[in-house]
């Protein structure tokens, strides 16, 4: 028994239920003689990986489904061993090089080299290397990637997967065929949810489906997970039933409330503990920033909002440069507190004047 997300994941290009035109294009591409390198990008949960696995299946048949998980060990020039998990079949290999941090360049070079030097099976002219999160690769690694792309084009193709092309160097972009996978629209998500329900034999009220679709923010994986979680919580469904949300999001909201209610150094300390708690649950810093910002700006006027957005953007950027996100998150919270406090005090003064 598997989760619905995995159970009903489309396996072939024909089974995809949205972005149909793109599916057709991808089919053309697979049929054509020269399959290029691909750069698949789009928000998370839009179906990038599903599409990639469909392409692989279209290229190689069901053989790609027999995958194994391996740990590969590479050695850096300074003799440091780095280990990375790969996910591979006879025809392809999937890896997330940014997993190893600043050593990603070594992984890129060595991995592509080893793959490219082994001969592909069964008359297939090339093997496919799927690289996840290329937008998080270091500059070094991207340069290395560009070189290897050219060098080994005869025996392997790359499928790069990224959230956005913003941080992929133009040199790589220009060497790949860009495939933008937009998130499904709400109606597409609703249709997807209904399909799943039908196959599971449960009845899903349209209103609930709408609500789930809206709450999922264009993330189909999340929508289906949510549907199943809702089902686990209560079935038969009620239209107005409580939507299951990740716990950390609730926690973040509670934390934001703490901030809005009181702006003192003591409160800052208390909030810091909450933030630590979130970080310890491996919640990415940028999501914390985004979530906090969304909650905090609610009660502010436009001027304030602009100010706060600017602070958030700056602090978040610095957090990505630094090693200790807590410093920067705290800076942001402190700044918000000060701005907000001033705002409240001014408002109070104006009220007094009015009276």
């Amino acid at each position, binding site marked *: 028994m598997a989760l619905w997300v995995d159970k009903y994941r489309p396996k072939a290009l024909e089974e995809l239920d949205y972005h149909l035109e793109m599916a057709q294009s991808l089919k053309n591409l697979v049929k054509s003689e020269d399959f290029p390198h691909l750069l698949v990008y789009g928000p998370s949960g839009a179906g990038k990986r599903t599409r990639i696995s469909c392409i692989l299946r279209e290229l190689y048949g069901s053989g790609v489904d027999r995958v194994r998980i391996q740990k590969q060990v590479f050695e850096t020039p300074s003799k440091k061993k780095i280990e990375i998990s790969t996910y591979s079949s006879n025809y392809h290999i999937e890896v997330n090089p940014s997993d190893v941090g600043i050593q990603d360049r070594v992984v890129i070079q060595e991995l592509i080299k080893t793959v490219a030097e082994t001969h592909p099976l069964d008359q297939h002219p090339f093997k496919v290397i799927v690289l996840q999160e290329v937008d998080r690769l270091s500059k070094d690694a991207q340069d290395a990637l560009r070189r290897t792309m050219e060098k080994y084009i005869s025996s392997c193709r790359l499928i790069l997967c990224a959230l956005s092309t913003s941080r992929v160097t133009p040199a790589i972009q220009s060497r790949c065929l860009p495939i933008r996978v937009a998130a499904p629209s709400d109606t597409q998500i609703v249709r997807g949810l209904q399909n799943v329900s039908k196959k599971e034999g449960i009845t899903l009220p349209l209103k609930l489906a709408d609500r789930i679709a809206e709450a999922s923010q264009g993330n189909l994986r999340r929508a289906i997970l949510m549907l199943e979680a809702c089902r686990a919580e209560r079935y038969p469904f009620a239209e107005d039933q409580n939507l299951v949300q*990740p716990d*950390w999001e609730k926690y973040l909201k509670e934390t934001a409330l703490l901030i809005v209610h009181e702006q003192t150094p003591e409160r800052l300390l*208390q909030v810091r503990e909450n933030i*630590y*708690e979130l970080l310890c649950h491996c919640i990415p810093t940028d999501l914390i920033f985004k979530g906090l910002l969304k909650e905090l700006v609610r009660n502010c006027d436009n001027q304030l909002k602009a100010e706060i957005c600017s602070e958030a953007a700056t602090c978040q950027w610095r957090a990505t440069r630094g090693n200790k996100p807590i410093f920067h998150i*705290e*800076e942001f919270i402190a700044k918000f507190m000060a701005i907000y406090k001033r705002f409240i005090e001014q408002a109070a003064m104006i009220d007094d004047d009015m009276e």
Partner: protein
Amino acid sequence: MADQEADEQAHKRIRLEDDDIVYIDLGDDDGEPFPVQSRPPRRIRRTKDTNDVNKEFHGGSSSSKVIPSTSGTPPSTKPKIGYGTGDGKKVSQIQKLQAAARMETNNKTSQKDILLRKGKKIKGCTWVDRNLPSNLDELFVHKKKVEEVTSWMKATMSSNRAVRSSKICVVTGPSGAGKTATVFLAAKELGLEIKEWVNPMSLTDYNADRLGKFDPDDIKVESQFDIFTNFLFRASQYSTIPIKGRTQSKHKLIIVEDFPNLFYKNSSQFHNNILKPFASLSVFPVIFIIADSASRERNVNNLFPKSLIQELNIGYISFNSVATSFMVKFMTTICSKEGVDADKSVLEAIANASGGDLRCAVNTLQFKFTPADSPLESPNFKAFKAPLGKKIKCPPLKDAHKFSDVEKDNTLFIFRALGKILYSKRNVLQNVELNNDVPESAEKYLRHNPLEDDPQCVIEKMEVSADTFINFLQQNYTPFFGSMDDVVLASEFLADSEFLLSRWPFDASGTASRSYKELESREEIALLIASRGLMYCNVHKTKNQWRPLNKPMLTDARVRIQKSCEIAKQIFPHEGAIQMNFYSEVIPFYSKLIRKHSSIWMQDQREFIMKLGIIERKKQPRVQHSLSEKDATEDANDDQSQEVDELEDIVEQNENEKIQIDQPTIGAQYEEDLEEYEIEDYSDEEKT
């Protein structure tokens, strides 16, 4: 061999003390005190600290013993230290600095000599030497620690296999805490024969100034590593050849206090090639004595990581610095012995300034109270006299260096430095002169009252890394601030310093820059920004009162995050490594589904999902006060060092209490943790 060596040294020492002229000869390889013919001896000014010279001899002779290959070459004609005949003033300054720097090591030497050669009369040396404890009862070391050391030694001697513990023991602690004395005295008491490793002088050092004549091929350079290995294994395997007239001890103890520098750089070699084989092969036990120091490479944790200690079952004894009260008591005894009359407040001040280093304190005491006509009282030392009447504290700016020789270096424990920064005390000036150069609009940025402690000075004396210190600052700054606006500035300064400290992948030219020097200066700047920033912007201070200081939560958090990521990669091999938003999306929903679909996941997976998917709500804010409330009401206007001492004493008394803020090991351990994670990129651990 050791005995012979000691004999020689003592011999020389006596010659030296009787003569005004001191000959320095380093290449004393044949054991003859003055091989005058081959090399004209140099005449040097007699220094007040004869131990200095002793040290030279000690080093020289021992090196010639350990490095067999030196015998073939003419030993250096150049004394290692520049006791030249040049400008007297300059020389004496150099001497002064060197004397202070080496005081520690000298004293160790003499200690050992005394212990080994009981009955020899030693005169005219420092008070430290004269007042060395001669048995364990005289030691000013916590009884429990002494007990630990002796019991370990006993255990190694025991013939009962079951009782016998590991052959290796590590003794750590701040310098001057009595580690060496304890070990030597304990060994003496138990009748162990001591064999000590002394670093050989390197060959290249010898020939540095005569490169022209030096042919490297002539000399077979044996690496320090090999020498050390040989020494250790030979010493541990075979008993000493009996020498007539000496009673042969059945048990032998090897002591390593001087570590070959190589090991700091390459600790894994040390672990794998020396410690591990040694643990299984050795007949005699070995004790490693390591002083805590500011330098990170010399960290205990680098040489003896926890995993290794566990693996080899290494004994680990950690000394605390001597409490102030003990020190004062000890100094009072000395004073009465030496016939000086010292005020108690002066003794306290000295004790405070020494930062828990008893040896340093006694040396200071001697400088202070030596009669004016003694050779010690050169013009350079007069400077020390004046301030001793007052409290010794970190003096403002320019005078700082004058004390650095007397006050122990690196004496500021982390929490004490923290106190200085966080309280950011200012001297209140009575008649403030307004600076007219500052435009009116900027006046609010002026701080008229000068800071009591110069942050630069605090930083220079601190013994932890910039990273650690900034973490501590960040953890503890909020309670000291009374206004949100100040906190904003403070948090900004802290973030700035963190930003500066973090890895900079590319410099301007786009190439990776990891030069050590650049890192150094960046660390310093980061520290300055953080500490000056905090001191500057704390305008609306909270009530001046004693506050507990906490360990940064960051350390803990990092460990948790890293662990989680590792587990995730193991038990969710596919998703954990490749799936995006694994922690922020997948796991949270799994945790909601777990009741219904428990069969999908294995037990460990289920635990992991519950642990990471659900955030536990704490009813109350976590308890912040880490120490007893006893001191909370203490008058905060007292000198901070007072608080520090109080803290120390508390910890000393309640060693079993869970949180021991002033344990230097906290800092050290923390650094170890950091070191582990420096390898991994922190931001990467956060990936989804």
